[in-house]
């Protein structure tokens, strides 16, 4: 699936987007965040505080328990500060 990163999540990882292939045991957003934390120092820094990360699947907000199987695009970002 395609992963997209924004704001300080993007900066800490050092990528705006990439294709990721998590193992089948990664079923939810929470699982995916835990998996990301183990992918290297930059990912560990970006995902250190899971509670500060918001996620979207196919451009819709989702909660940590949301299943990821059917989605083609996942996005991770901080709480929004627009307006």
């Amino acid at each position, binding site marked *: 699936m395609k992963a*997209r990163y*924004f*704001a*300080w999540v*993007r900066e800490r990882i050092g990528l705006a987007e990439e294709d990721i292939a998590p193992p089948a045991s990664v079923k939810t957003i929470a699982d995916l965040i835990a998996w990301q934390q183990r992918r290297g120092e930059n990912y560990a820094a970006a995902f250190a505080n899971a509670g500060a990360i918001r996620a*979207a699947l196919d*451009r*819709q*907000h989702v909660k940590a328990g949301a299943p990821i199987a059917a989605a083609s695009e996942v*996005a991770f*970002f*901080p*709480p*929004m*500060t*627009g*307006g």
Partner: protein
Amino acid sequence: MRRVLRVQTKAFDASAEIAALGLGAETGALVTFTGLCRDDGGTLAALEIEGYPEMAEAEIGRVAAEAERRWPLDAILVIHRTGMIAAGEAIVLVATASAHRGEAFDAAEFLMDYLKTRAPFWKKAHRRDGSAGDWVAAKEDDEAAVARWVSSKPTAL
């Protein structure tokens, strides 16, 4: 019902945007809100606004649809900018039109409250002294502002 929802980098002319709505004689109330870039006591030079454009358009559409479900509106206009925005410049324009002012005021406030917490935009501060900018932190007050709409009526959002 007129609906104009845009994400853009260029500055907007609020008067021209409102005129372009072409409101009819059934409209008795037009509320406009413009969000500006503050200079934080002279320390801030600009805000850099990062967006997730495809999701922003979808999310603003969902918020606008919920506003239309809640109030009898003649028009909704939302323009949100991304990119570098100098202190004093406008960031966001929201306008709502209705037969009566109560609905137009409420809908405009609802749209802004939801845009601030749900539309995928992030602000980075650029200081006048040239120091590396910090990402602006989300405010708990903004979440509280949304919570009161949820408690006032079940929401699809």
